[in-house]
């Protein structure tokens, strides 16, 4: 299945794109997708532990199982205000 992955804030600079489409196996977890994305965009690896992981508009943990209707976002800690 294909998952759309969006990047925000300076992750756009680290990856060189705002979003990408990644072919993954059925049953993949959010954590596994994150690993795959870090392999594809190695500059994200340094920020791996602080990366916030979102499915659609909700934060999820690494064990969340993705489906092909999901849109995933990865971004650094937020700074509103």
């Amino acid at each position: 299945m294909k998952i759309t992955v969006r990047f925000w804030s300076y992750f756009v600079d680290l990856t060189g794109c705002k979003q990408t489409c990644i072919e993954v196996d059925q049953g993949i977890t959010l954590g596994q997708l994150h690993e795959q994305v870090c392999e594809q965009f190695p500059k994200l690896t340094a920020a791996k532990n602080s990366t916030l992981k979102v499915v659609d508009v909700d934060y999820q943990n690494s064990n969340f199982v993705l489906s092909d209707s999901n849109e995933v976002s990865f971004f650094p800690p937020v700074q509103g205000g």
Partner: protein
Amino acid sequence: MKTELTISPQRINEIALSEHQAISEKTGAVVTFSGIVRGQEGESQISAINYESFDKMVEHQFKLIFSEISKHWPIESIRLVHRIGTIKVNEVSLWVEIIASHRKEAFAACQYLINEMKNRVPIWKTPIKR
């Protein structure tokens, strides 16, 4: 509880906002907070901050926070305006108004709202150096 959320690049007009307070016969406290862009970020002097937001998620996360507040404190009304885009030093980036019967819950809800916003609402800042 009434809520009003505005995410906009428009300049925040605090006077105009204060003219539309939803005060009722139960109201005993109105707490407002204005976040202002500082001229210094760390060691650097800056002229402005560019705010970027993931709008759809910003709205969703604020709604969750408002809902949590309504479960914890008897609040009459929350209005929140967060400006996005480029905001110059000394301009308002965030305006919050909490209306309640008593100050204790109004202050507590305001503090909670801002703390939670800073933890989970997807807005990012890029300082623009002088």
